[in-house]
């Protein structure tokens, strides 16, 4: 009966179901308040009252019936287990590029079991072709499930593993890599791999979806098609991130991994290139390069793998009245780096100066990016900025704080020599610094 224990039912509902020898998926008959309800027994999710029994009626609707001493439950039939025959693998066209799709969690492709309403992920190559048949005309696809973790639960250790796995595939001479990733922290992982995978011969493209793939309006398939197209054929060899360009199902924007930031909680076009422009667009199965300045795809290049990250790095946002002991806390806890998210052009209140000085004296690397997100820090304009510079705070130009944080983690993972770390921080590794900041009116202020 362990299955019923896991069904989510509790108390009297669980007892009535167990007494009637019912399993999830069975047809049950419930008599309550003089009425009879019949349907397939559905498991309970965490939400709601666990003593309400949920059945899926013949009409397809789920309803919840409260269990009580006056309610009778009978088993009216045994459920049939759903069967799914994967569609036959389409013939692999040897002319097409070879792309490996690696998944970290989330469901880029899934199927619905309309019998019980469960959504199952579809991640084998067969499944993917079945759900997104267009893929078989774009690339020869292999798949690998690296993790099955919600993106908010990923850590820098996972970045390291992912980088190593990607390197294995690239060394096997694939034409491109696609990483399916939950969108919440996809920007962090994309930035991390931008630093970890150097001298790339082929593109590595991150992809996610803002509408779950079980629904007909999901953006998952369109994004995936765009990502696989870019991974297989794009002329650049960098870490990119492919998502909807607008709320329409038309163009897919490929952002640079170090410049992509999630900017909206729910829109399809949540990712924007901050202080830069997308490297390419995919429109009607065609790749349109947006930037002349990019690293070219070149099989002769040898990947350089630098997958180590230091986790003892903190992101500290400055705000009016911030208690500087927050900084002291991290220093005392042995943190090696602090990324200050300063105000405006790059400022932190004088109240914090002693704590910052103390941190730097103790060998903690303190770097600064602006909480404005848009624009470049310039710490020479006001006294406060100049004072911070004099203390040894490192300005991170036009990097937004999250990329700055990841870079600091990576730089500290590369060396224990502070001077080397500082040098790495101010070296442009993957396009995280742009020399000129353009207005980007359309993105920041909306199309006029």
């Amino acid at each position, binding site marked *: 009966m362990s299955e019923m224990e896991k069904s989510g039912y509790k108390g009297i509902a669980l007892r009535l179901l167990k007494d009637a020898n019912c399993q999830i998926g069975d047809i049950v008959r419930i008599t309550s308040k003089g*009425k009879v309800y019949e349907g397939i027994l559905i498991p309970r999710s965490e939400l709601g009252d666990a003593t309400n029994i*949920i059945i*899926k009626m013949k009409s397809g609707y789920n309803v919840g019936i409260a269990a009580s001493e006056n309610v009778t439950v009978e088993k009216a039939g045994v459920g049939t287990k*759903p069967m799914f025959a994967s569609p036959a693998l389409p013939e692999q066209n040897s002319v097409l590029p070879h792309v490996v799709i690696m998944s970290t969690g989330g469901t880029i492709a899934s199927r619905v079991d309309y019998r019980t*309403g469960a959504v199952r992920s579809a991640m084998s190559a067969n499944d993917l072709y079945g759900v997104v048949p267009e893929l078989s005309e774009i690339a020869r696809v292999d798949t690998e499930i690296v993790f099955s973790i919600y993106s908010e639960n990923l850590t820098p250790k996972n970045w390291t593993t992912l980088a190593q796995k990607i390197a294995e595939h690239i060394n096997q001479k694939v034409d491109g890599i696609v990483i399916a990733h939950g969108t919440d922290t996809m920007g962090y992982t994309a930035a991390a791999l931008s630093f970890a995978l150097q001298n790339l011969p082929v593109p590595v493209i991150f992809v996610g979806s803002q509408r779950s793939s079980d629904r007909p309006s*999901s953006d998952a398939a369109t994004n995936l098609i765009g990502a696989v197209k870019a991974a297989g054929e794009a002329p650049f060899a960098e870490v990119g991130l492919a998502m909807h360009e607008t709320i329409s199902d038309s163009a897919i924007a490929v952002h640079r991994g170090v410049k992509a930031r999630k900017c909206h909680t729910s829109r399809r076009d949540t990712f924007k290139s901050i202080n830069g422009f997308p490297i390419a667009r995919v429109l009607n199965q065609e790749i349109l390069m947006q930037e002349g300045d990019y690293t070219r795809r070149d099989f002769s290049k040898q990947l350089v793998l630098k997958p180590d990250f230091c986790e003892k790095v903190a992101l500290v946002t400055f705000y009016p009245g911030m208690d500087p002991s927050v900084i002291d806390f991290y220093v005392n806890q042995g943190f090696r780096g602090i990324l200050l998210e300063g105000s405006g052009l790059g400022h932190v209140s004088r109240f914090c100066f002693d704590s910052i000085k103390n941190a730097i004296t103790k060998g903690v690397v303190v770097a600064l990016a602006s909480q404005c997100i848009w624009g470049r820090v310039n710490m020479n304009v006001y006294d406060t900025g100049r004072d911070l510079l004099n203390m040894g705070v490192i300005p991170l130009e036009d990097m937004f704080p999250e990329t700055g944080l990841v870079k600091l983690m990576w730089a500290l993972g590369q060396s224990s020599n502070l001077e080397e770390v500082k040098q790495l921080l101010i070296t442009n590794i993957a396009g995280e610094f742009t020399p000129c900041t353009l207005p980007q009116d359309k993105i920041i202020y909306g199309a006029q």
Partner: protein
Amino acid sequence: MATTIDYAKIGLKVGLEIHQQLSVGSKLFCSCQPELFKDEPETTFLRRLRPTQSELGQVDPAAFFEFQKGVKIIYEANHKCACLVEMDEEPPHLLNMDALKVVLTASLMMNMQPVDEVHVMRKTVIDGSNTTGFQRTCIIALDGWIKVGEKVIPMQAASLEEDAARKICTEDEGKTIRYRVDRLGIPLIEVATAPVIYSPLEAQHVALAIGRILRDTGKVMRGLGVIRQDLNVSIPNGALIEIKGVQELELISTVIEYEVQRQLGWIKVKEELHSLGISKDVLKPEFVAVTDVFRESKSKVIRKAVDKNFKVFAVKLAGFAGLLGRELMPNFRVGSELSDYAKFWGRVGGIFHTDEMPNYGITPEEVTKVCKKVNATENDGVVFVADIEENCKDALKAVIERTQEALIGIPTETRTAKDDGTTRYMRPRPGAARMYPETDIPAQAITEELVKNVQANLPEPAERKLARLMKQYTLNEKLSKQIIDSEYATLFEEIVKETSTVTASTVAAFLTETVKALKRDGVTVENVDEKQIKALFAAVDSGTLAKEATADVFSWLAKNENKTIQDATTALGLKMFTEADLEIIVNRIITTNKQVIEQNGKNAFGMLMGIVMKEVRGKATPELVSKILKQKL
């Protein structure tokens, strides 16, 4: 023909599904206004919907077909009627509890049992009418009954669901569909009866009874398009046909009569085909290019297509000579049915068939040539179509498949009702409802307290209401019944309460007889909303508008939307005379009628009243005229 059918004998069975929009101030899953907009959209966006696969690998055939053809959907929105929720750019907010209470109210009035916990479901719909690709819907109560006359009608369920987006048009040879998302998300109640209705007229009576209960909740919208009645019609040897969107109550019996005629007609066609020895093998999907026949055609419609570089394709329908022109419903022939299939599956504008030839400028010679090309004899029918090749072939394939089905029986399908009561093919009937849970919305308990609370506040039953109206407002029985059956029962009481000089019977007569008469005269009475009607009577009450002018003002408001009573009176020249204006008129009339007054003395009053009122009707109240006249005499 209709009158001769004994529906009980042929075994007609009808079930009703009544949908009506709820008036609860906002949408079902967000706070947007439940209103439609007429201006140009502020935002448009493009989407494609992808059929999701079930565990069984099934996809809705019609949906998958549209997806394969690369159908694009353009949605139109403005800020008042749609937010990111309607655009499927944000998860739904919590279920609108006011809407749930209305459905609960109606359910209890129909003796249904509320479920203990409401689970919102996603019903897959990928024709584009929902941006998500599914309609959100939930069952609130089950298993009740209502009494219609002496008969008890079992009620299956009451649900709460979101209305769909409005289709505006199709473009680009049918490959782009435009929808407006303003209607999407407006709360709807759906009430379904068991299929226990056995005659067209009975169906109409049941629909009327349900409509009355829904109106009694006081929380349903009124106006055009707020109520949609779906009919499930079946006869033995025929098929179960789902007819969508009957808007007029009065049309229900006609729609059912015509549907029975249509099914009987097809059954007859089947018998005749069998007696001719036609089998599936001779109805072959062989499509022959006949474009050359029409290169020099005098037919404008076909030449226009050929000149656009379209192709003309033809197919032979063995044994169909004479059958294609067979009438199934008024102005609707077997050929019309095939044409609707061709339009749906082939995105063509229509088809030509030999039973309607010569026609459209197509000559008998051209017809002969086409028949020769497909090897048709005089017993065969021929269908041809002009469009791009892909569309032609899809269209003719649909035609052939429909004729093959005619040998077996009547396909079960979803049809849409037209204003004349006939129905048209809409799409194949979806298989078992493809539903799965809406995981973005938590289950909503219906507690005993909530049920008790709603139960304690149920609207009064119609019979008690009738007695009360007659007593409270001293209305006669006929007028009271009319007001209860109208959409204005609540409004009537509100107006009477808010006015002091207007009599209840004046208001009741206006809201029933006058409005009905105006509607008969072609006035779109739905355009005048309740606020405007209230303002109309407020104006009468304050003496700024004459009672006699209400019909004119109402008609003007129906024609000129979003205007005020003042706009109407100004436009109609209905400005009321002031007392001073009236005195001048009265003085003049007294002067010109001096002789008569002297002759009749006090008895002249009635006559003078008549003369003055004739001149100032609609611009002065009789009370005021009478007062001034009495003073002057």
